[in-house]
């Protein structure tokens, strides 16, 4: 090859990391990225147990305290802290170094790409201070890293570094992050009550497995309660639960799938005014214990693909959870934002046949149920909600066997009515939240009983 005539500048720009990379992630996910670091710290402290449903890990000594308001963001934990060596060589580098052995030592962590913390703090604000208190051969030591993001961006040299200073050790070993001079978007979101509630919901959902193990996460002074998935179990209902290991390049991944009915399917298939309840159903994916996909009803899981129908209200009630666990975090099907799965991942694809089987079984049940609603309801009401952790191993999903019912000829009655009148009548029927369909059905039954009487 001939000699190049010139070199195109391909150096990374500081502004790219601060202003561009932060656009690919939501603010909620930034907070979660910081939480992941704390959780990884807790996991390190208890000695790297594989985070499966049966791990028996006790995270109750650990607490992560977050305060987020218009004035700033503060997060502190007692999860062991980061030592100076980690800070010098790993925690502040942009992306994982090629020769980075430190993070490959099988500690079942969630942080994988080496981008989360930096991206998170850049998204949050302009003035950052990270403190760490850690144990070095039995002696408590501490340091802090102040970052003035504007000043850092303004530096022109290509030698990227942050200064580390000595600090007084805090009472407990852990990391404390303080971000002030918030970016405009962050300030607005932290002052938004609906953002605050949604952040709490996301934490409750995505760290449900850690919270169940006793981890405490406090958001603005109030502890977050886990929103744990439950599935119905009875003689006629049995969720699927099975697990296996799959070999992947450079190691192996443990896969566990649980799937079944979490609630009875709806009688009313028309969308109601509030479809919030819908959110919790669908497929969940957890990587090393952290939920990265929740209530998915898209082609990412199975719906609308490979001959499967797209999600419909009829399928409400179904929940499936896939747990991928590996000490080689890079093998997990995570995206960098930890908000979806990497569809090209062989590990993820290897779980799809089982996902298809259970999804198909549920679709068939909800179809058969339409012809035998009364029998189905009896079976559904008899089933008990069981926590994920208590579900028995079972290679196939079991649903009630429903009798085929002779069809009675029916017609549909449809009419419009002012919403205020529907609500008023719903209130008189005893529940202001009854769906319009339910109000219509009850009105018919009421008139029928009154004017026609018993059949």
């Amino acid at each position, binding site marked *: 090859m001939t000699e190049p005539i010139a070199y195109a500048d391909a150096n990374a720009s500081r502004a790219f990391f601060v202003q561009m990379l932060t656009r690919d992630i939501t603010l909620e996910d930034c907070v979660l990225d910081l939480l992941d670091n704390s959780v990884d710290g807790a996991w390190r402290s208890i000695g790297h147990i594989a985070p499966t449903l049966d791990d028996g890990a006790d995270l109750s000594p650990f607490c992560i305290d977050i305060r987020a308001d218009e004035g700033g963001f503060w997060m502190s934990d007692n999860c062991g802290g980061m030592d100076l060596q980690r800070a010098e060589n790993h925690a502040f580098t942009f992306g994982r170094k090629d020769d980075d052995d430190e993070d490959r030592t099988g500690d079942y962590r969630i942080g994988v790409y080496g981008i989360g913390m930096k991206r998170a703090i850049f998204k949050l604000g302009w003035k950052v201070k990270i403190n760490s208190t850690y144990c070095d051969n039995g002696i408590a030591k501490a340091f802090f890293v102040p970052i003035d993001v504007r000043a850092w961006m303004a530096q022109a040299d290509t030698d990227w570094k942050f200064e580390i200073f000595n600090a007084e050790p805090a009472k407990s070993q852990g990391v404390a992050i303080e971000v002030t001079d918030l970016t405009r978007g962050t300030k*607005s*979101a932290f*002052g*938004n*009550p*609906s*953002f605050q*509630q*949604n952040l*709490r*919901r996301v934490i*409750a959902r995505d760290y449900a497995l850690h919270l169940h193990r006793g981890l405490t996460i406090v958001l603005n002074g109030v502890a977050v*309660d886990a*929103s744990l998935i439950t599935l119905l179990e009875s003689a006629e209902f049995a969720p699927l639960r099975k697990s296996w290991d799959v070999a992947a390049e450079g190691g192996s991944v443990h896969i566990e799938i649980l799937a079944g009915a979490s609630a009875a399917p709806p009688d009313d298939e028309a969308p109601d*005014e*509030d479809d*919030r309840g819908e959110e919790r159903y669908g497929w969940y994916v957890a990587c090393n214990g952290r939920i990265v996909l929740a209530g998915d009803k898209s082609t990412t899981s199975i719906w609308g693909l490979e001959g499967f129908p797209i999600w419909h209200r009829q399928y409400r009630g179904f929940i499936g959870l896939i747990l991928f666990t590996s000490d080689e975090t890079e093998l997990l099907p995570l995206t960098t934002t930890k908000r979806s799965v990497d569809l090209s991942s062989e590990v993820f694809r290897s779980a799809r046949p089982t996902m298809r089987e259970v999804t198909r079984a549920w679709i068939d049940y909800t179809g058969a149920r339409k012809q035998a609603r009364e029998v189905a309801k009896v079976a559904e009401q008899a089933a008990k909600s069981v926590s994920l952790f208590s579900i028995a191993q079972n290679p196939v999903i079991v649903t009630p066997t429903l009798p085929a019912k002779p069809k009675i000829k029916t017609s549909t009655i449809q009419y419009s009515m002012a*919403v*205020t009148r529907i*609500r008023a009548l719903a*209130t008189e029927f*005893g*529940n*202001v*939240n009854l769906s319009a369909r339910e109000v219509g059905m009850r009105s018919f039954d009421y008139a029928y009983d009154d004017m026609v009487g018993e059949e």
Partner: protein
Amino acid sequence: MPSFDAVNYSLRPNKTIQRAIVFEGLRSLSYALDWSSAAYIGFGSIWFADFVMAHKRLGIERMISIESDQIGFRRAEYNRPFRTVTVLNGLSYEIIPEFYDDPVMMSQPWVIWLDYDSELSDDATHELRGVVERAPANSALMVTVNASGKKYGADPSQKRERLRVLLGDVVPDALTREQLRDPDAFALTMADLLQQFLQATAENCARPGGFVPAFRAAYRDKASMITVGGILPTIERRDAVSTLVTEDRWEGFSDLAIIAPHLTLKELAVLQAQMPRSEVMDRTVVQELGFDLGEDQIEIFRRYYRHYPAFAQLSA
């Protein structure tokens, strides 16, 4: 039945106190937000109590009252207290959106009080969302709704679900049964959530100055009612407004439902003669004065005696 046929508006002491607090607050805010050409928009009914205050306390001239009832409309027209009050016949959720396309209305701040007689409804939240998103900069928005628990469901879980449908994400998953069951707690919880709904609406549409809460009170004459309100300032005025409403002497936020005791003129005069006072005012003090009242009643009087109305019968 229209509420003006059900209630003689002038005989609701707690409503009167609450209205006086709001207008006193608005008066202090008016110095920070030039309302010399503002428009007052409300439901004046046939009594126009708030319109009288909007004009006398705030100096607002352009005033619009919305009245949906046909007879009410004729009576409202007849009872207009000032020449510059216009009464429009129709439903507010049809009339207010017309203002959004009216260059004259959009060129000046609004002081708008949506004083619904009824409980919060889907129409009302839709209307509130519209006002928060579209009202001109430096407007004030107040809303009053019935907050009787039974209007929102027969039991705590129905109430929780109903609030969720009406107010969306701001309603926490963990509302306690106590917050939903006890009538005063329910009213105050609902006031908090309604206020958060207004704040969230402003943030969700990236309204530059956002919504700064300024009023939140529960009161009860016959029905349990709440009033929530705030300012939609420009970004430049936001700090001035926030500072004002967080001062100690700001009376707009009440953690105690305003349920003032009915006092005779004699009791009122004797109690009032004790005010203002820095020493404790409690039941013992009142007993020493020769009569008796509950501690909560005394506290409400102590806080709001300056706004306390006195009613007497007049011959027409």
